[in-house]
């Protein structure tokens, strides 16, 4: 088990956002957390990545309690994340953004007199990540001037550049046009494979994306786990479909997606 949440409770004042959530992620899994708005998905990711401290329960990474650890410590352990709202460094170029992550990974952030431009290793790694995410043509462009889809890719690419053991993506395709969603997801999954990042946990609203890419789906509702299983298991779960999607007709759609996925995999 690479990441394990045990009986997590988290309150916002009197409101219980997570009510005894237990979740285990195995190495090599692609897990999607789904649920309606306000179900506690982002809180769960925030607790798992140290952004929020759980009020009760523990979070174990490779058997080690990491609840309340600083993001910097989590990064060093091999946990990376991206945010729901796109996070870039407006004053930095695409290349510089990726360099920040690579510098951090290599532990070179305190090199205060070395010429960054002469550090070939940092440059090479940053260029490799840019290449995998299709960002090479915009390498020297300011991050703030990129289209929304490219910003999202850069945000995720910089987290990937840390080469973590597990990556947690909070709605990686939110705010992106429907046409771009699949392209972005495909790029991410391919990049993860090439970079050896085997374990991904994502929060996602788009069910096409969820059913197309996940090994396992965890449905959250009112701060509790409603269901936890493979896409095949969940596509027939009426409770999940009605709660998360709100439409029974989606059964058919998900079945079609899964059949298409199986055909591609074969």
């Amino acid at each position, binding site marked *: 088990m690479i990441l394990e949440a045990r009986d997590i409770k988290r309150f916002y004042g009197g409101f219980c956002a997570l009510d005894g959530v237990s979740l285990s992620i195995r190495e090599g899994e692609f897990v999607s957390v789904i649920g309606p708005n306000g179900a506690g998905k982002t809180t769960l990711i925030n607790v798992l990545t140290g952004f929020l401290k759980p009020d009760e329960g523990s979070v174990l990474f490779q058997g080690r309690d990491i609840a309340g650890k600083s993001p910097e410590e989590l*990064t060093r352990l091999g946990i990376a994340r991206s945010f729901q709202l796109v996070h870039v460094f407006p004053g930095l170029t695409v290349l510089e953004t990726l360099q920040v992550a690579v510098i*951090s990974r290599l532990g070179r952030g305190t090199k205060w007199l070395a010429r*960054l431009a002469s550090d070939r290793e940092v440059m090479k790694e940053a260029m490799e990540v840019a290449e995998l995410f299709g960002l090479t043509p915009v390498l020297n462009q300011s991050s703030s001037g990129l289209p929304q889809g490219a910003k999202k890719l850069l945000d995720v690419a910089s987290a990937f550049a*840390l080469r973590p053991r597990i990556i947690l993506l909070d709605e990686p395709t939110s705010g992106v046009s429907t046409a771009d969603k699949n392209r972005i997801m495909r790029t991410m999954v391919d990049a993860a494979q090439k970079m050896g990042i085997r374990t991904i946990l994502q929060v996602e609203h788009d069910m096409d994306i969820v059913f197309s890419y996940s090994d396992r789906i965890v449905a959250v509702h009112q701060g509790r786990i409603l269901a936890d299983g493979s896409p095949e298991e969940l596509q027939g779960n009426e409770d999940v479909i009605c709660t998360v999607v709100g439409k029974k007709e989606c059964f058919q759609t998900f079945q079609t997606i899964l059949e298409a996925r199986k055909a591609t995999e074969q």
Partner: protein
Amino acid sequence: MLLGIGFLLAAVVWPFVGKEYQVYLSLSFFSYSIALLGLNLLFNYTGLISFGHALFLGIGGYTAAFMTHKYSILSMELIMVVAVLLSGLVAFLTGLICVRYIKIYFAMLTLAFGMLFHSFLMKTYALTGGDEGMHVTQPKLLSMDLSQMDKMSFFSGPYYFYSLVLFLAAAFLMWRIVHSHFGLSLQAIRDNPDKAEYLGVSIRRYRLYAFVISGCFAGLGGALMAPVTGHMDPAMVFWTHSGDMVFMALLGGFSNFFGPMLGSLVFIFLRDAVSSFTEYWRFIFGALLAALVILAPGGLMGLLGRAWASLAGARGSGEQAT
């Protein structure tokens, strides 16, 4: 590059062509510029604005006063080493508290520490001379005793070139810092601390490092300034002096590496010119600051950049037309 060579040539020729008083005045440019290199590491590269940087100028200046006047230690190199170490130490101790905060809270804390030091200087009369301050004796440069030279010849000659070399070395050092791995990480913190933290950048630790480096530069500037003024008093660390430094950075354009230096040059000569006909120079400078913020937030460097771009554009379209 051409501008740099041009500046260097002008700086070397200046003591031979400028009036003695003007050359003397430009010594403040070197001291302030070194201090502003430090201030701008915080302001532009880390996104923290200090309203108490005169504290470090004061530490540097009073170090020179103590060493030369009280202990007759006249080696300028030793004075600078002690000034940098002391400023670094004070920056480290105050920084441990200040860097926990950002924006106005950081600014107010730095201002508070500056004013605490001001009160300390005022109240400890026996040690610091209180509001009367302390005399600064002319130091030895590279162990050379130049006390036989008259004051103005010393400052417009050996001390000028000594300051110029130090300024160039400090500018080169800061250039290396902002173009290093550390410099880029600071800029990431400035732009988006949350994101930087999740990329493994230790934001509080890096801010503290930046604060200490910044304090060291300001301390060095203060030590270099002390022999020029010949006297240190609490006005050196008063908050308006910190404000002057921020004003210089804004005037020149803090978002450009060279902007604050240009700002200090213009500030020093403009203040001299304005105060020669009115004692209300701060009134004029206040109006100038307001106009600057509204009309040219990029400062003089921003204006020069725009002028250069339109000139290049005009030339480009001229070439196209022909």
